[in-house]
């Protein structure tokens, strides 16, 4: 089960993932990010505080947008991941490509810096 909640704060689009992202629902995540991009976002933050699990298919969604983000100059960060999910990002090496922050304020700061 995956629930997606979108919210806009100042210039930031925050997408909150609640539950699990796996092969069956990764398409929903993909659609949400696509929509946010189409609406001309400049800063996209993924709130992973309530993300319990992410499968490789879910990681594939983030990965597929990395080039888009850099081309369009969109600043992107993920924050609030629990230890297990964080480990998944680290093992794959995505932590080297995506800004991963412990909380919202750190994530905001990271995206400001870049």
């Amino acid at each position: 089960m995956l629930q997606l909640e979108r919210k806009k704060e100042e210039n930031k689009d925050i997408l909150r993932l609640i539950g699990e992202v796996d092969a069956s629902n990764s398409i929903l995540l993909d659609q949400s990010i696509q929509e946010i991009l189409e609406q001309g976002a400049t800063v996209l933050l993924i709130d992973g505080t309530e993300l319990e699990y992410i499968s490789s298919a879910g990681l594939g969604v983030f990965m597929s947008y990395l080039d888009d983000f850099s081309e369009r100059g969109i600043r992107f960060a993920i924050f609030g991941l629990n230890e297990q999910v964080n480990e998944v990002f680290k093992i794959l090496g995505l932590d080297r490509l995506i800004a991963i922050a412990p909380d919202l304020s750190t994530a905001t700061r990271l995206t400001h810096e870049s």
Partner: protein
Amino acid sequence: MIKTSALPLGRISLLLAIVVWLALVLVDLVRIFGMINNLDSGIAEEVTWILEILFFIFVYLVYRHVFWKTRQSDFLTLIWRGVSTGLFAASAGLLTELIYYALGESKIGTDPFLKNVFYHINFAWTSAFLIATTLLWKHLILYQKNKQVVNQWQVFEFSMAGALFFVFFNHNNLDYSFLFGLVILLVISILLAANLKWIPYLNFKEKWKTLLFLFLILLCAGVLFYRVLDSGNEGRVQINLTDNLFLMALFGFVFVYGLFSFLVTLFNLPTSSVFEQKLTEAINFQKLSQSIQPEESEEQVLDILLDSCISASFSDGAWIELNPKEQVQIKNPLRILDESTRTELTKLIPQEKQSWVYTSAAEIPQPLTIRLIHPNYKSALLVPLVVNKSILARIVLIKEVKEGFNKEMLSIIGTFARQACISVENHRLLNQAIENERYQEELKIAQRVQKALLPLKLDHPDSFDICAYSNTADEVGGDYYDTYQVDENHFVLIMGDVSGKGTSAAFHMAQMKGVFQSLIQLDLRPAEFMKKANAALSKCLERNHFITASIFEIDVVNHTFCHARAGHIPTLWYKATENKAEFISVEGLGLGIVRNLSYKNHVQEKTFEYHSGDILVLLTDGILEGRNETGEQFGNDRLKKIVEAHPQKNPIHLQQEIIDSLHQFVGGDGMIDDDYSLLVVKFK
């Protein structure tokens, strides 16, 4: 049994009946001769009675046989049989009248012997007619059998059998006992005459024919009865065969049931269209429910439905509208009306009623009546056809009268619609099942092909043992492992995992094998191997797919292995000297994530020295991510503990231990929703 049924019972009975009749004629003539000449003929009147009874029995057997042979015929054929016998009997009687009228008072005209021969002929025909008609009535009465009717009929039959022998008791007198018996039998006849359930099954035309036939039977019965009375009164016959309770009761029964049938058929005439309508509806309903045959299509079902609805409601026009989203086409969607009238009428139906979506999912839309304001057409009925929670089509029925659709029509049309929807749904499910079956077959082939992509035999020297295991979440999966012997001292182990699972993962797995098998020939160092693999796979993987891989190059002479990891689950290394297992930490990004030359910054290799008794466990994330019913993952620590607990085991047993523990952990309610693979190496 077979022998008796092979005997021509009908013919034997007929023959016997004729013989008995001849004997009867002979005996009676002798008796008359005796009476006229005041001689004792030496033949008691009982002989006549016995012969008469035998004659009745044989005639009964003849007709029973005839009706048995024709029991499957329709009512009209059966009734005609009664009519024809009656006409014969009546014309025989009239012919006799005619002959005597012609003969006048001549000598032959008054000859008692000739008169008696004619009397016997008429008696025979009358008996045959009465018995045939009684058997015909029996067939009609017992058309819709139940226990009560059968019992009633049996009572009647027993009483008639009693009446047959009544003559011995009352000696052919018309006394009170005779009247009493007759009244009882007539009452039973009247009771039986209430069983007229065959009549509604006749259609309008058949009813008219039946009326004619019944009229003829009644007429014949009347004529014959009159003649019997006449001959009795005239006293020109010295031997009376017809003042017999059995024969009189038969007259009564034939007449009563014939009259009742005639009247009921007559009064049923005006309502027969209703019954016919109901029967048509039942047949239509059956057609609708049977139209699930694979060779029939949804269009045919809708076609039958449209026609059934029109006939059930006597509509003056109708059409069927198909939901534009559905892929059904119907050749002739319009009935009775023309296209312009239809457009005109469509405009008169409120827009919201024509919507293809229905708001409340719980409520299936029902047939809906609408008043039309139109010079010719006054009312409409919308019948939505709901298949699989969406409206497949809508039938619009139009009538020229106001409020032309009554409650019964709504209910029967609603039933038709539901049945048709069930048919369509079944048809679709059946097709789906066939399609699924085909996919299953295809997947089985894919599974076999994919299994062949994994090595049957793992290359390894005597200095280490190795075994591997792989299982897929679906029929096919995205895990891969392989071994390769570079030279006599160098062996390569490789394990890969495609993101996602199922068919797409399986295709990428096949690509991965191709890339790995090609690159491995180049004798590359592990980090270089990953760089080249990344470049190659970047060209063929879909944008949101990636592959993780681990590679080990083992040098069995120097007891070292060089390892690079591309985003893959770290390998567990049990060190025999320390009695401890730990995950090898080497940085490395998955393949296909960064699709340019900068990948070289994201991968590294490290060389380690191993010792005898060391164990390497390469695995994919499916093992660590297997979850029990509380959602807890199998995790690194459990795996570590298992290996540390069983370092002495050979690879195949250790591997089994890990798989068993995983299954035990996951349990019946948990899940391993991913492909999972293991490669266990133990150095000697």
